[in-house]
């Protein structure tokens, strides 16, 4: 893989250069679709960051389901602007996505991503692509003021047609939240150290 990357890097500003259209076309997946994820969430209240794993499922075009399998079981359904969180032995809780600017449009974004809907994404974000087809980054900066007040950027990292990591940076100095997807989520099994996970997210680690 390293071997194949070198010529690509050399030709980065040639035919192999990426743009948002190419990336989005590549990562589009028809419904139903699913992908494993590993998420790491840090909080100043917690002694250590929380590491969750499970899968994202998109059963139909209007719905996104986040199934957490470990360290506990929880299903979150994002649909029609509302998130429903279901846990074993509890009544489901609902809240409006509009109350969480970081999440507002998250489902829509995800759907737009998986539909390859560039126009839909560009309504809410300014897109900029970097890197090569084998290792690209798509930066999404919110246009809406309310969202921009809390959300700095969403960075997508990937390889070819594989979306491997979503990195969300909030305004302020909180550490970024990372969601590793697809191959990166599989690769993350057994990886605990934060720098290693960050490298996995960014595609630095090579195996």
């Amino acid at each position, binding site marked *: 893989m390293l071997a194949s990357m070198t010529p690509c890097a050399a030709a980065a500003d040639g035919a192999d250069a990426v743009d948002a259209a190419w990336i989005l076309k590549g990562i589009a997946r028809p419904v139903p679709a699913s992908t494993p994820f590993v998420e790491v*969430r840090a909080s100043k209240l917690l002694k250590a960051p929380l590491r969750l794993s499970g899968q994202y499922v998109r059963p139909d075009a209007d719905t996104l389901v986040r199934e957490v399998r470990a360290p506990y079981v*929880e299903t*979150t359904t994002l649909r029609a602007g509302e998130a429903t969180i279901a846990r074993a032995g509890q009544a489901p809780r609902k809240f*409006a996505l*509009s109350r969480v600017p970081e999440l507002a449009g998250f489902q829509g974004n995800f759907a737009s991503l998986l539909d390859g809907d560039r126009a839909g994404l560009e309504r809410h974000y300014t897109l900029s692509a970097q890197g090569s087809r084998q290792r690209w980054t798509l930066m999404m900066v919110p246009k809406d003021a309310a969202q921009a007040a809390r959300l700095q950027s969403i960075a997508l990292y990937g390889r070819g047609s594989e979306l491997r990591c979503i990195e969300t940076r909030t305004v302020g100095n909180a550490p970024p939240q990372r969601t590793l997807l697809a191959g990166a989520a599989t690769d993350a099994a057994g990886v605990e150290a934060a720098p290693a996970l960050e490298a996995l997210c960014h595609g630095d680690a090579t195996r």
Partner: protein
Amino acid sequence: MSAPRRLALALLWLVALLILATLVAPRLQLSGDLRKFMPAPQTAAQKLLIDELGEGPGSRLLLVGLAGSDAETLAAQSQSLRERLSTLPSFKLVANGAALGPEAIPPNLRPYRYLLSSRLDTQTLDANYLRAELDARVQDLGSPAAALIEPLLAADPTLETLALAEAWQPANAPQRLHGVWFDKAGREALLAIETHAAGFDPKGQQAAVDSINAAFADISRGTTTRMSLTGPGAFSVEIGNRTAREASMIGTLDSLVFVLLLWVAYRSWKAPLLGGLPLASAGLVGLGAVALAFDGVHGITVAFGFTLIGVVQDYPIHLFSHQRAGVSPWASARALWPTLATGVASTCIAYLTFLVSGVDGLQQLAVFTVVGLATAALATRFLLPALIDPAPRDAADSVWLGRCWERLARWPRLRGGAVLAIALLAAAVAALAPGSFWQNDLGRLTPVPPAALARDAQLRNELGAPDVRYVLVVQQPDVESALRASERLLPSLQQLRADGAISGYDLAARYLPSAVTQQARQARLPDRPALRAALDTAMADGPFQSDAFDEFVADVERAKNAPALLPRDLAGTPLSASVDGMLLQRGGHVTALVALSGLKDPAAIARVASSHGAQLLDLKQASESLVAQYRQRVLWALALASVLLTAAVWFALRSPRRVLRVLAPMALSTLLILALLRAVGVELNLFHLVSLILAAGLGLDYALFFDHAGDDRAEQLRTLHAVIVCSLTTLLVFALLAASSIPVLRAIGSTVALGVVCNFVLALLIVRAPVGGASDVA
């Protein structure tokens, strides 16, 4: 006096009126406050209706539906509409389902969540509970809700704030999509807007509706969204505007008719101008007098008043018809004066009885009509002669009038027996016709189109909005006892909802418990060491930092030691609108309201309420009883008025026979109008009553003038000419009103138009003396 000079004088008069109008207009504060026009309330329900509510809590509520775009757009528009309107002073509350989040409680009051929430009534803050809650919080931090929850956690690991915000949502609120209320089909975003202005305050409601429309126009620009706005206030605005439009259209037509008729009748374009001056003077001087004597002029005073002074339009007509070459206008006016003065004086005396009615609105009406009638009469007597053409065509020379008169002369004359028989028959029909005699429901006078009503019912049902007709009240000497009494009502309300008698309720105690309840909750809260110990146990070996919840410990300690939260502490918070609107503090007592929605069984609710010291008020019944009371006063005033009027006519004519002859047509006309209206199934309302008074005033004048004409042919012809012109103008004016689509205008129009016909015919049949024959006085 030369013709140009006369015209100049007329124009001068007109200018004087315009100046008067500019003086009166700023003093004229038209008030739509129905309370001023109603008698003093007596029953508890009436008092509440008039003194405190205006109408029910539901009557201030405007219901908004946004449809026609996709749900996400509608939700965003619902949010912008709420943001826009909540900053305006006309609105007490703008609710669209966006949760009352932690921001509903200002930071210094946040510790009070432990006293306001009922969750800790069944749960203590012990180690087991805290451990379960903290486990759930770890999951929350790993969930998409983390960003929402994390900022709250340090002070509120049990998320009491969110539980409270949830509890404050309406009990049977509509579903939420994209964070705001939507109908069941998910196609229409819903908002409930409470105005500060009462439902009966047309000006306040107009301002509110205008702001909503303006805000909607702004936020919906470039989208296909449509807004529907319903609720009592929106309806009153729409119907008020429709009535005003139709009345002004009819008014314009009427003016044209008046001008044309007078122009044709007197072959002079100046006749309409001169004929209009006394009426305009009467209206303006009357309004000026009311503005001077009272604080604000009631809108209904103006409407009723202008109806009643319609009679003065006849005064100049009599002068025109009697004016002829060879007689100075002053002499004509002088000759007419005794008759005119008798009519005016007796009518004024009759209206004076309204002064003793004890109702502000009726007193205004008395001042307006008495001053107006006197002004018009004096203007006709002392100003108009200077302006009219001294040598017009003599009406007595008209060929067609002569022929008309010949024919009328052959009409039979009604004698006492026949009059009595007709009167008895009419009275029987009026009394015995099926259907109820009086219409007390003021709302029926200004009916809302069925489609709009259906829309309102649909939105009301979707939103679970409170009932407009019924409200539960708890009356107590102070706030604390009112809150305690409301709390005692809560289990019964829950039971009623479970039984399906109501679908929801809202009351101040839902947001702010009584001090006693708050103190009981304080007693149950652990003290600082106990909580710290429980928390330490719960957090042992857990994922949270050991100092993560220090703020929580401090907040609970503050809650435990704080003085109970009182309504005044809420001032300026979003909660105060909910609490103040439901907790009315007036002069030494407090009324707590319980708004009910989806009422199925008022009787069951009334029973439950009274067993808990509360009362179910039927505001519709209260307002109808007020209307009935009001009508009773009018009827008593009228009874007194008819006695005074008879006495005045008697004093002027001094012959029992003439008095009877003059009064018989208007009395019989009144009975005939009543019989006719009742026979076609019309239920009578206040507007019919006022119109009957006008009709009687017209009839009295017709009869007096026929009586005055005596048996001289020329004089009879001139009188006939005058009365034909008078009755034709009045008939046309009111016939147009009778054709209106608006019941109020129809009631006035049909009654007066019938009155004109009956009075004209009966005056001819009863009063007119046979020509040249011996006077009928014998």
